[in-house]
Each structure stands twice: as structure tokens, then as C-alpha cells.
């Protein structure tokens, strides 16, 4: 198997609505940025893989083929993958396999989602339109008719039973995590929400699905992001700072938590982490990583995933927040970008943004959000809205 490296990234700021750009133009913007970052032309891209989970968001079935045409890739292979909010990982994973196998040398991974063109004519709200337009992502017969919002469903399946079984994370610990990520977003040029909130502000904000509050829920955004991956031989020609994809793991878990023993856990994250750690040769993640970006789709999922990523034992994730270990100034910063609650979130793109962010961290070129890089390794974790699809990607630079 050939080694594969990230050689270029393209990001644009998360916004509540990118009214002045179509999803096609957004795809072009980040593609151009990624090509410029890698000093490549579009002719040097062998194939494109698209992370687009929700067709309804683009008001269009099969949107990938229209983006493919718009960004001037006609005639080349274009592959589209949907894995909800873990889609960026699944596409990177597949691109790695295709390049490692020798099928392609240079691939563009492109995520574009524009959820805020949704609109509710009844309430005159884009947010309501978004929630109504995308709730058919949940299972149709048993879940959709009683669907209470992803935040409430994830709280129900994970945080509430986790708190009961393992005693953490407490509402105060979760609020501290939310406050941390809001603070982290302020200097991030790509972040959507830049406000300083205290843990008390977080706990006193509107309850969405008890105990999860408004400031503990991900934002709803429009965004696009791109990563260019290349084989070892090409990567060394393209850049002095190749960032190697050294570990990949994905795990699909039941989306309705039929299995009672799984309540309170995000076992898919643990399985994905184990696979990625094995591939990357990581045995002590807490000591071998410099930075983590992960999906805090609700703030409680961050400390619970500290546990699933084996940074600590079950029941100890909240204490890492108490100790400040995952602050930007701590020994293992988590979500220096601001995470989904403050940097922004739209499924299929924000996890690619996380990868862009960690790649730039390892290059020591992350404007506003740079953390110290000592070990040369970073990790990106992604889950879909109910932690059924889980993925972990490990990036590392030459040491």
C-alpha cells in the first residue's frame, strides 16, 4: 500500500446563509483555494470524491455531477459519498484507499452543503425550514414520526444514560466545554459565532432537550471545504510539508439504539478509534497527539468522546474539562477551531473543515487558532447526528 498525504486545503467561513453564492460557486471557491494551496492546476487532479449527504439541501438530487461540471472536472471520475456529519472522513478514507492502491495519484475531496436555502413559509424562518427539510435523514417508520430534533435524540441516546451509568459528564462540565469552544472560535477567521459565554450563560440558556441547552447545540450553517490528497511520490513533488494520513477508522452503528447495552455509549467512535490507532501505531493517544478536532454536535458528546477515544477511562471525560487539559493552553487541545457549537456546522462539510484545520495545525499555519505542535500528530473525529456513523482520521507530519 502506498502512503498518502494531504497536500492542499481549501476552506471558506461558516455562515448562517451564503446567499450570494450557489452551492456550485461555493464548491469552486474551496477547490480553487485548495489548488492554490497545493500549487496545482485542475488538470493535475485525477479524480474527485464528493462529501454531500443531503440532496434536499442543494434542492437537487445528484448534485455532485453538476459541481463536477462547474469546477471543470468533466471527463474525470467523480464519486459521491453520503455519511451525514461523518461524510468528510468517509470520503478521505476512500480517497486514501484509491490512492494507496495505485488507482489514482492526486484526488480532490470536496464537501458542499447549503442547508440555509431551506425556508419555512409557515414561520418565515430558515432554521425551521432546515430542520423540517432534513429530518427525513432519520429512520422513516419508527423515528421520523416522533422525531424530537437531533440534539434531543442524541441527548436521549447518549448523555442521559451515560450520566446515569458513568456519572459524567455533569451539566457544569458540559457547559465548561461549550464555553471553551465558544472562546476558541473568537480568533478563528472561519468561525460563524464569535461570542464569549460563561459556563453559567450556557447552563442558563434555553433548554432544547434536557439537560442539553441552546449553547450546547451545534450551529446550522452553509459551508464548503476541500482537501487534496496525493500519493507519496507526488506529495513530495508538490509540497515541503506533506501531512500524512497515517490512520483511518470508520464504524457504522445502529441508528436507533435497539441494543439496550449500547445506551449511553458511542461505541462506533471507539471502534473507529481502535482501527485508526492500530493503523497509525498509536498506543497512548493522550501522550502521542498534539491536537484533536471533533464533532461536538451537542457539547456533551465531546467529553463522552474523550472516553471513546481512550484519552481517559469511561466516566472521566468531564474531569479533563475540569482540569483544562483540552483547552488551547492545555496538554491536548480539543476543538481549537471552536467546534460545531461556535465555528459552525453543516453535515458532510464541517468534518472536512476539521481535517483542514488539523492539517494546517500540523503545518503550523493555522491562523488565529494555532496550538503548539511537539509530537507531530493530530486527530479528527466525526460522528453523524446520532453517533451511528463514526470515523477517526489520524494525520501526521514528517518527524
Amino acid at each position, binding site marked *: 500500500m502506498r502512503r498518502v498525504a494531504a497536500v492542499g486545503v481549501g476552506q471558506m467561513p461558516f455562515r448562517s446563509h451564503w446567499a450570494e453564492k450557489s452551492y456550485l460557486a461555493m464548491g469552486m471557491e474551496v477547490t480553487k483555494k485548495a489548488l492554490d494551496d497545493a500549487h496545482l492546476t485542475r488538470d493535475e487532479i485525477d479524480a474527485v470524491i464528493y462529501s454531500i449527504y443531503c440532496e434536499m439541501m442543494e434542492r437537487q438530487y445528484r448534485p455532485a455531477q453538476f459541481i463536477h461540471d462547474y469546477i471543470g472536472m468533466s471527463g474525470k471520475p467523480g464519486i459521491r459519498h453520503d455519511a451525514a456529519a461523518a461524510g468528510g472522513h468517509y470520503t478521505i478514507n476512500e480517497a486514501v484507499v484509491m490512492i494507496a492502491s495505485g488507482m489514482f495519484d492526486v484526488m480532490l475531496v470536496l464537501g458542499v452543503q447549503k442547508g440555509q436555502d431551506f*425556508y419555512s413559509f409557515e414561520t418565515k424562518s430558515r432554521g425551521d425550514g432546515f430542520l423540517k427539510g432534513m429530518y427525513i435523514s432519520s429512520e422513516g417508520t419508527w423515528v421520523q414520526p416522533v422525531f*424530537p430534533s437531533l440534539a434531543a435524540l442524541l441527548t436521549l441516546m447518549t448523555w442521559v444514560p451515560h450520566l446515569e451509568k458513568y456519572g459524567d459528564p455533569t451539566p457544569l462540565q458540559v457547559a465548561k466545554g461549550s464555553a471553551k469552544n465558544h472562546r476558541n472560535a473568537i480568533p478563528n477567521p472561519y468561525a460563524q459565532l464569535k461570542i464569549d459565554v460563561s459556563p453559567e450563560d450556557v447552563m442558563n440558556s434555553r433548554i432544547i*432537550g*434536557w439537560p442539553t441547552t441552546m449553547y450546547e447545540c451545534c450551529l446550522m450553517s452553509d459551508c464548503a471545504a476541500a482537501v487534496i490528497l496525493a500519493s507519496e511520490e507526488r506529495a513530495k513533488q508538490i509540497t515541503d510539508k506533506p501531512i500524512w494520513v497515517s490512520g483511518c477508522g470508520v464504524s457504522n452503528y445502529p441508528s436507533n*439504539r435497539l441494543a439496550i447495552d449500547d*445506551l449511553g455509549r458511542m461505541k462506533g467512535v471507539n471502534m473507529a478509534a481502535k482501527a485508526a490507532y492500530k493503523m497509525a501505531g498509536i498506543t497512548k493517544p493522550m501522550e502521542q497527539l498534539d491536537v484533536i478536532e471533533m464533532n461536538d454536535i451537542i457539547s456533551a458528546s465531546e467529553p463522552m468522546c474523550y472516553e471513546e477515544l481512550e484519552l481517559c477511562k469511561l466516566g472521566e471525560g468531564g474531569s479533563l474539562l475540569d482540569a483544562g487539559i483540552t483547552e488551547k493552553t492545555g496538554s491536548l487541545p480539543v476543538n481549537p477551531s471552536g467546534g460545531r457549537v461556535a465555528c459552525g456546522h453543516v453535515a458532510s462539510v464541517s468534518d472536512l473543515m476539521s481535517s483542514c484545520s488539523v492539517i494546517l495545525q500540523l503545518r503550523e499555519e493555522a491562523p488565529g487558532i494555532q496550538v503548539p505542535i511537539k509530537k507531530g500528530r493530530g486527530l479528527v473525529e466525526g460522528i453523524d447526528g446520532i453517533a451511528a456513523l463514526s470515523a477517526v482520521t489520524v494525520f501526521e507530519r514528517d518527524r
Partner: protein
Amino acid sequence: MQQKKKEAEIFEAPYRYIADYLYSYGEISKFFREVKDNKQLYATKCPQCGVVWCPPRGFCSHCYVPTDWVPLTGKGTVLACTYCYFEATGEEQLPHHFDLPFIMAIIKLDGADTGFLHTVRSKEAKMGEIKAGTRVKIVWREPRLGKVVDFYFVPDDGK
């Protein structure tokens, strides 16, 4: 200024996509026929490994064999619940609106081996009173349409 001007030039037009279905429940049709016509909950039991599935599965996901129908009492125990102060469901899907807050729960129905996602209603119960371990029983709605919202759960007072 440039930004303002650009935004002023944006033009937006309304679109609405509607897809209608007459959806076949296939091998689990009996579940919804019994719900609609007989106010009776059913699960399916695997003849090979013995797992009782509810939501029912016509074939066991462990053994790939056809399952057998078994009736349930409609009573169960809350495994976990959350109090929802916000409802995101598309209203067309919901013949019966929820009053806020409503309680979403994962319920272990008596006789089943799996968790069942549904709502628990209680006018009296204060936040936190319904929790893991609370016994619940089914309440049937009128009219019923052959959907999972044809019923909901309330605390079981033992009567």
C-alpha cells in the same frame, strides 16, 4: 459598502418539493394492522436465537431467518428520557402536535429485548420525575392511521 450592494442584488424565489407515498410496510405489515384495527402491540421473536424484536423485524438480523409474531402487553420500563422544549418534526408527519415540553424516552417494552423510542405524556409529572426505571403503559389515539404515532405512553399507575 461593496458587500451591501452585492446582497441587494441577490434574488430569491420560493420552491417546494412534495413527494407522496402509499408506503408498504412489507413483512412487518401485521404490526401496523394490529395497531390500527385491534389496539394491540406485537413484537417478533427469532425461532433460532430467541431475541424478541420491537420495533419488529420480519427477519432476525443475527440469524437471517423469518421471525414469529408475539403479542406484547403495552407496558414497559423507561430506560432513558429527555424533556424536549423544542419540536423539530415536519408538521405534516404529525397528526397530533406535541405540547411542549414533551418527554422522549427509550422504553423497554415488557417481553421485548430491544429499546423502543417513543413519547411519554404526563400533565402532572414535574421535570425529572419520569426517569430511568419509571413504569409506563400504552394509550391509544383516535383515529389511528397505521403509524407509530397512533399510540403514546403514560406513567403506569398500576390500575
